[in-house]
């Protein structure tokens, strides 16, 4: 008896995308912090 073929998208779990979501959040947070620091630096308003 043959089994039904499996689509990879049906085999996904909630934690499959977790590292990518955390990594994206980290990357965009990092980019935002660098952009804000650069902007404050250009404006000469860095507190240090």
């Amino acid at each position, binding site marked *: 008896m043959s089994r039904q073929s499996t689509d*990879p998208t049906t085999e*996904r779990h909630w*934690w499959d995308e977790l*590292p*990518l979501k955390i*990594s994206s959040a980290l990357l965009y947070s990092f980019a935002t912090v*660098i952009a804000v620091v650069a902007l404050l630096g250009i404006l000469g308003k860095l507190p240090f």
Partner: protein
Amino acid sequence: MRNGYLQGQWQRVQMFLVFNTVALPLIFGTVQPEQVKLIICVVGLGIHMVILQATLRADGWIQFLDARMINLEQLDDEDPSGVRVKVFSHPDFAGKRYSWLASRKAFGFFGLAVSAVWVWQSIHYFRLLF
């Protein structure tokens, strides 16, 4: 295309490992001034996260291409003369490929753990200096 993406993903993993093997000892094992270590931390954190993101995103493309390969294999499914060996549409394929034990999934969490080390060191040297 799928094989290209798969190879690309593992090349990025190698890049990730080589980068961290070279860069992390620069913070932990040298007598550099703290200002230099802070710069290494910030630049290292940025490079690390870009490589990690590129590696993890490749998985989405491989998953997409797997689904297209299944479509391709099922094109002449009804035709009795189209007998062939199924690979991507085989019921065991997804179970093996998307198992929670797959090495690339462990890599994702390992990459995040290394990110935490970079963030910790960046904050540590920032607080030390300012």
